[in-house]
């Protein structure tokens, strides 16, 4: 995630606003991805019947793999769209 590289000292003036805009967009994208992951993996992995508060092992493993797959697919789709956008 590249948003960690930002947040350095910014000069006063117009450039500041651009950076803030970009940072806001990035945060929006990241939180959007996060919300999607949470809703998708929750619906797939966690059973609606709650026996105890902690996650059990099956759910943990399922969530691990769900998140890993989601990120991989997200990355691949992003690459494809980039190449499609670059060629078009």
């Amino acid at each position, binding site marked *: 995630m590249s948003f*960690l590289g930002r947040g350095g000292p910014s000069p006063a003036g117009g450039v500041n606003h651009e950076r803030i805009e970009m940072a806001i967009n990035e945060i929006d994208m990241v939180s959007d991805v996060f919300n999607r992951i949470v809703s998708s993996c929750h619906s797939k992995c966690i059973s609606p019947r709650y*026996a*105890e508060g*902690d*996650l*059990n*092992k*099956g759910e*943990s*493993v399922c969530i*691990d*793999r769900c998140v890993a797959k989601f990120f991989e697919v997200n990355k691949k789709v992003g690459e494809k769209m980039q190449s499609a956008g670059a060629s078009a």
Partner: protein
Amino acid sequence: MSSQNVDSAPKPSQVQKSGVRAAFEYTGIPPSWFDKRPKLPSRNWLIFLSVTTSIVAYYVYDRRECRRIRADYSSRVEHLAKEPLGTTDLPRKVTVYGAKWPGDEDHDKSLKFFRKYVKPIFVAAAVDYEMISGRRSGDLANRIADEIKTRRRIDAGIEPPSQSPMPLPNQPTLEQKRKRELEGGIVLVGRHTLKEFMSGLKRGWTESMDRVDREDMLAQELASDGRFDEPEEPVIDPEVVDGEPLPTRSRLLPSQNVVLFPLQMSSSSPSKSTQYTSNIPAHLDTPPSTTPTLPTLLLVPFTNHIGFRQVPNMLWGFFNERHKVRAGSEAAYSLIMSHVRPFAAANTIVTASEIQESQLDGRQGGDFDFDLPAESYYDGAYTPSETEKARKTYYDALPAKLATARALARGTRAPTKEEDSHPPPTEVELRAERLKKEMRWRGDEAGWEIVKPGQPVQWDERFVDTLQVFDEPRADDVG
């Protein structure tokens, strides 16, 4: 109704039919149907129906048995998945190795077996797995040897342990990572994987821990091979290498030896000894006398049927998948129940006759003979003569291509129309292509050397106490 019964009393068959007839007489069914007698279909139909029905029934029975066996084993381990897991704890993770079956273009077959027959039980028991496949013969051995050498280098302090780009607060330390690996386990699918694994293990712990780039080494070797020599008079041609990690070639005259290397290596005679100048002090580089304990191994029997001659085996396998399901599920169950026993290495004291025997049919005794019959199915697999033929055709065609490339590059002749539209490969591309092909051929040959039937499983005395195998769970195990 009663009058009808009295009339037809002497003919009992008609009495029953008249009941039906009475009920259905006016429903539109053709009246002739009431007088017909039921009879079997003809002999041919009977044959056809019985054959078809038996085949379909056997298939259905087999698949239902598969489902039943899987459900049975899953239910035995399900209770493990329902245990709670703390938020910072990690589940148990096993590493699955699957090498390429010799002769099969699809390198994934071993892992497909794992995914279909062993994984469902892991999923039911909430055991995490990481699948590593060897794309070409010998790939897995190389990978394991490299991993072990990296581990040795980290242990010796030469190399810093790998840093993640984003250090998290509760990142596990190296010891914790290794402990988790040990608790996990290793799954080896098939005898060929076992052989490659043991060969990689032995190489990793015996060879020098110097970082070796196989491509570079092969490039050095090929450069001194003389295949790209000029056929005519000695013309020193220092070509510029554009970014490719290959040395240029010039006529190897004793006085002039202008060979440019991108690396800082002393050139001159094409001796391999110059390339092993390791940067590691000699006292650290000796192979250690004891090897650390390895995670417990799970040996999964696997046979891949390929080729026309094995089509009957494939048919048999199609109709008898329940055996594979049972084998895979039992293996998964033994890993989950974690009942271990030491690796049964062969006896070190053998008589002369036993040595002769073992050399004949490759038997070593103990766990080394795991799944030995599977090797008899390497029929039609890779043979070294294939590579020889491929090599011969390639090297026969090479001088012509080289001449064309050189002529076009030097401008001694103008390109023809076809060459304009489809430019032939330049010399640099030819070198790169040769490097790729040689890597592949040599890799295949080396891999076949490891895996071929009759080749014993590699062993080292240091491994004696470090290897364990998952065993059949005892009858009194819970679950």
